[in-house]
Every structure is written in structure tokens, then in C-alpha cells.
């Protein structure tokens, strides 16, 4: 609706956007890409750190064979990467009875079913351990936790969804962490329960008794008294003393502690990549701003006649230059909003990839304070892009334009 004041300025600015639909679309698309990429880079980095730090399944530390702390954590808590080696069963007995250790659960890995890991452990991990403060693992209705001495399995919800395992199903495990048809074990496991989803790596493995892995048909007999790692919950300052005992004074095992800072140092290794992406986003933003300027300039050349007519009808210089600035702001505004859409799409795919590969569940998409900052920055870019062409229009002599058009 055309009304005096801002309404007529808005009407004319929108007409300008519509009249130059293609270049307007190009400007909006470029700005959206820049804003979306920048926000995604920032958000995914932040969100991935948070998601991984909250997916340590309620454990403070992991005792593993001598090797990299990060490898031990990724292997035993996130079920990715290979184990650096095995620990003798005695190490589990020792640490379980060490002062300051609240919980200790042994795990053994080395087999899979159709590419999904079998993790051998004690049933108490699924019945007594809080994977998140106040949250125990739950088995879907009709199921139960495996017995420690029977070939039974509890399947993570992600695995159950992917390969369709249900209560009562039987399967043959395969040797190694990667699926190969020829590595089939003769043992048969029966599914006795499906875990309720937790959004942690526990969802993407098959839980079996530790004795099952240790005594699996075809495994080396030396495996029967070894394990891959011990998952630990600690009390008080036990972490410091255990770190000292195992990492600085001992040479039998590695204490991966604290989990959060080990993961943090892992992500820090990729901080350069975030900076590169931010730089790319910045460059795209500059291109977007240039496209806005070019769109406005070409629009101005074509609209010279229109502006002259408007001046004849009584429009002031301020009104005409406001139309240009508002047109630029509209492009920036659409660009910023589309940027959130881009961010949403990128977030969706990245979340999917992370979930598929690690089981770590990222938060649903949300716009936070950084989104508001980027929105403001994009509007400023739009404003800055519109000022120069608007000044040109402001300074233009009406008589010159009239001469050209009469």
C-alpha cells in the first residue's frame, strides 16, 4: 500500500529489488553464503566441542595401554579409532580397588557385526552407571541387560535402527573392527534388549559380556585375561594422583585424564581450519557487498529516468537517496535471513555426518547471540554499500536528468 513517508520509500525500494531480480538474487545469495558459512564455522566448532565434551558417557578418565591419551579416549568412549593395545586383567583389579576411584568398568573390543562394534563389558555398566547426571541406561520395553556369562547382546538404538536387530534375533560376530565376510566367528549371540537412545556413542555399538569378547571362538588364548581399557569415575583429586602414578612414574599403562582437556587439545589442532573458513566467509562477504554496489549502480543508471520523474512529482533528494539505501538494506536483510537458512542446512548435514560416524548427537539448530551479531554486521555492510550510490543520486542535478529524458 502506498502511503506518504516511509511507506512510499519502501514501495519504491521493493520495486527496485523486483525490477533487478536477477542481480538482487545474486547479491542475496552471496551474502547468505558468507553469513551462513561464517555462522556455521563458528557454531559447529562450538557445538562439536560441547557435544563431544558431553558425550564422555559420565566418565572422568580412561586407563588404557601405553600410548596416546587421545587414542585411548576416542577408542574407548567414542568407539572410533583402534585401541593402542591391551591391558592385563590385573590392572583392572588394581585400579578398581584404588582409593578415589568411584566406578571402574572394563571394556574389551576387537569384533564387529556388519561394521558396528561389539563392546564387551560388565552388565553393571548398563544398570548402575549414570551416563549423564541422574540418568541410567534404559532398555526398551520387553528387553533386559545381558547376563555376564551367556552369549547375549544389548544393541544400541542407532545400530538397531540401522540394521534392524530386534529382541530375540541371533547373529554371528565378525573378527576385527572392520566388517569382512571371511572373518565370521562361529559364536552366536542373541539380542536380549535394545538401549533407549541417549545421543551418545553408546547408541552405535552392540554391548556384550566382556567374557564373550575374551573367549570368542578364534581369539588368541592370551586374550582371555586381557582387556582394552578401564572406564573410570573418580572422586575428589584422585585424577592428579592417578595421573602421577601411571603417566609420570609408571610405564605399564596410560591414564587418559582429564577427558575434557584431552578432547579440547584435539579440537585446538583444527583451529587453523576454522580461521581459514572464517577468512573465506569474509572474502565472500566482500564479494556480496560489491555485488550490492554493482546492483545499485546498474539500477541507478536504469532508474535515472524514474528518479527524475519522481523529483518532478515532488520527491525530495532525501527521499530518492533513501530509496537507494533502503534497497541496499533490503538486499542485506534478505541475505542475512537466508544466511540463517544456509546455516540450518549446513548444521543439518554436519549433525547427520557426526551422528553417523561417532554417535554424538548435536543440539538442534538455534540462533544465538553470534547470529544477532552477524545479522547486525550484514546490515552494516548493506548500509555501507548503499551510501555511496545514494550520495551520487543525492548530488545529481535534476535538470541534467531531465535533459537526458525529455
Amino acid at each position: 500500500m502506498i502511503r506518504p513517508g516511509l511507506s512510499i520509500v519502501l514501495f519504491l525500494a521493493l520495486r527496485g529489488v523486483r525490477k533487478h531480480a536477477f542481480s538482487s538474487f545474486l547479491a542475496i545469495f552471496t551474502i547468505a553464503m558468507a553469513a551462513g558459512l561464517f555462522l556455521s564455522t563458528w557454531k559447529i566448532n562450538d557445538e562439536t566441542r560441547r557435544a563431544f565434551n558431553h558425550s564422555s558417557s559420565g566418565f572422568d578418565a580412561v586407563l588404557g595401554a601405553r600410548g596416546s591419551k587421545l587414542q585411548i579416549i576416542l577408542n574407548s568412549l567414542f568407539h572410533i579409532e583402534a585401541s593402542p593395545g591391551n591391558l592385563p586383567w590385573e590392572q583392572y583389579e588394581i585400579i578398581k580397588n584404588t582409593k578415589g576411584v568411584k566406578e571402574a568398568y572394563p571394556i574389551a573390543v576387537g569384533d564387529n557385526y556388519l561394521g558396528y562394534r561389539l563392546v564387551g563389558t560388565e552388565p553393571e555398566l548398563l544398570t548402575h552407571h549414570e551416563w549423564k547426571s541422574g540418568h541410567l541406561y534404559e532398555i526398551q520395553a520387553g528387553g533386559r541387560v545381558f547376563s555376564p556369562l551367556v552369549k547375549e547382546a544389548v544393541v544400541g538404538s542407532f545400530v538397531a535402527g540401522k540394521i534392524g536387530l530386534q529382541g530375540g534375533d541371533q547373529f554371528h560376530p565378525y573378527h576385527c573392527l572392520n566388517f569382512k565376510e571371511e572373518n565370521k566367528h562361529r559364536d552366536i549371540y542373541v539380542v536380549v534388549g535394545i538401549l533407549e537412545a541417549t545421543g551418545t556413542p553408546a547408541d552405535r555399538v552392540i554391548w556384550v559380556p566382556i567374557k564373550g569378547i575374551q573367549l570368542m571362538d578364534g581369539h588368541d588364548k592370551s586374550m582371555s585375561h586381557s582387556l582394552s581399557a578401564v572406564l573410570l569415575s573418580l572422586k575428589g583429586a584422585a585424577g592428579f594422583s592417578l595421573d602421577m602414578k601411571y603417566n609420570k612414574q609408571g610405564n605399564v599403562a596410560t591414564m587418559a585424564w582429564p577427558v575434557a582437556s584431552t578432547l579440547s587439545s584435539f579440537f585446538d589442532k583444527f583451529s587453523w581450519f576454522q580461521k581459514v573458513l572464517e577468512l573465506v566467509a569474509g572474502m565472500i562477504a566482500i564479494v556480496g557487498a560489491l555485488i550490492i554496489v554493482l546492483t545499485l549502480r546498474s539500477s541507478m543508471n536504469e532508474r535515472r529516468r524514474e528518479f527524475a520523474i519522481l523529483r518532478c512529482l515532488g520527491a525530495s533528494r532525501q527521499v530518492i537517496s533513501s530509496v537507494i539505501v533502503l534497497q541496499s538494506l533490503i538486499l542485506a536483510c534478505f541475505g542475512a535471513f537466508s544466511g540463517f537458512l544456509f546455516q540450518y542446512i549446513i548444521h543439518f548435514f554436519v549433525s547427520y555426518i557426526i551422528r553417523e560416524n561417532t554417535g554424538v548427537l548435536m543440539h538442534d539448530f538455534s540462533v544465538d547471540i553470534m547470529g544477532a551479531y552477524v545479522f547486525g554486521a550484514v546490515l552494516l555492510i548493506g548500509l555501507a554499500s548503499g551510501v555511496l550510490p545514494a550520495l551520487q543520486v543525492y548530488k545529481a542535478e535534476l535538470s541534467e536528468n531531465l535533459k537526458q529524458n525529455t
Partner: protein
Amino acid sequence: MLHISNLKKGFQRTGEIFLPVVSIDELVLEKSKMVAIHGESGSGKTTFLNLIAGLLVPDEGKIYLDGIALHELTESKRDFLRATSIGYIFQSFHLLQSCSALENLLIAMSFGGQANQAKAKEMLDLVGLKDRMSHKPGDMSVGQQQRVALARALINQPSLLLADEPTGNLDAQNAQNSLNLMKELCASTGASMMIVSHDPYVIHAFDHQVAWDDLNLVSKHQTCS
């Protein structure tokens, strides 16, 4: 009422030669009167109308419209006066091509401080364009475009209507109809009208006629290119 005295306007051309275009001692147009100024093309008539409309600033002289000293107004006040008190019809109509007939009128109204859709529709109805309100100029005949231009010029009920060769693009029949409509609408709103043309047919349609060469002292000696 329009009162002009000692009005002078010229342009600096290439080679730094100052070329005088308009030089008028005195001209008075009473309220509700209509005058036709006739003269050759390129003799400065459009510049004269642009001075009255406030689109150009005179080098010297005074222009009063309804007692307001146009020559003393700031540009923004001149813009507002043009929007509210002066209607201007151009030879090539100068319609906004991307806007409908109705929008052309509403835009003109909005610069005058109001945009009454019912009134705009009523005006288009009055000029016989009831069925063409949502049509864009490109979808209209030349005669219809001329009527949109007329409706737009009069929509803010100006006290003065300026028309620069308004029938230059029309055939004889349409020109006759258009002139009649212009006179009729000005008479009904009480607006004064100043029309400039080189067409004798148009000039003879008005009782009050002035020869540009008699009015403009510059023209007595030379003709602008």
C-alpha cells in the same frame, strides 16, 4: 495566482559562453485563468515552465504562486510546493513505467502528504480509465497514457497546471479530446492553466494566447538551439 517579474535564466555552454534562454519582464496569471503560450521548438518554453515548477532556479527575478515567493524557498520546500500546488504534464507524459495507472496517481499523492485510494480511483474514473486502473503504461494506448498523466497532474488539486506540448504525441481526435478534458477539469477544480505549444491548433483552443517571442526578451533577438 501566478506573478512573475524580471525573470532571467541562462546556461553556461561549452567554451564558457553564457547563453541567455529566458528573460521575462512581467507575467501575471489570475486564478482560474488559462493561457496558451506559443512559440518555436527549442526557444526556451520548457525552461520557463521548469522555472515556474521549481525544477530550475532562476538566475534573477521573482516568482510568486498564491503569494508564496517560490524564488526564496529552499529546495525541499520547493519540492513540497511542486507536489501540492503545481500539476505538470510533460510532452512524453513521464509516467512511471513499472507502476500501474493507479500507483502512478498514489505515488504523486503520497508526495503531497496523502494517498487516498478512493480519490485516485475516482479521478481515473473521471478521465475515463475506470477499466484501466491496474494497467501499466506500456499496456495502454498513447491517448490513455496522456489521460493518466492528466489525472496524476490534477490529483493533488493544484492551483496551477503546467502543460508542456501535452498533445504533441496525440492524433487530432485524441488531442481535441484531451484539451477539452484538461479545460473541463481545470474549470471544475478552479486551477489556473499555462500551456505551451508550437501547434496552432492547440493555441486556438484557448481564449487567452501569448506569443513566446513577445513574452521572452531573449527570443526577440535570438533562438536557442
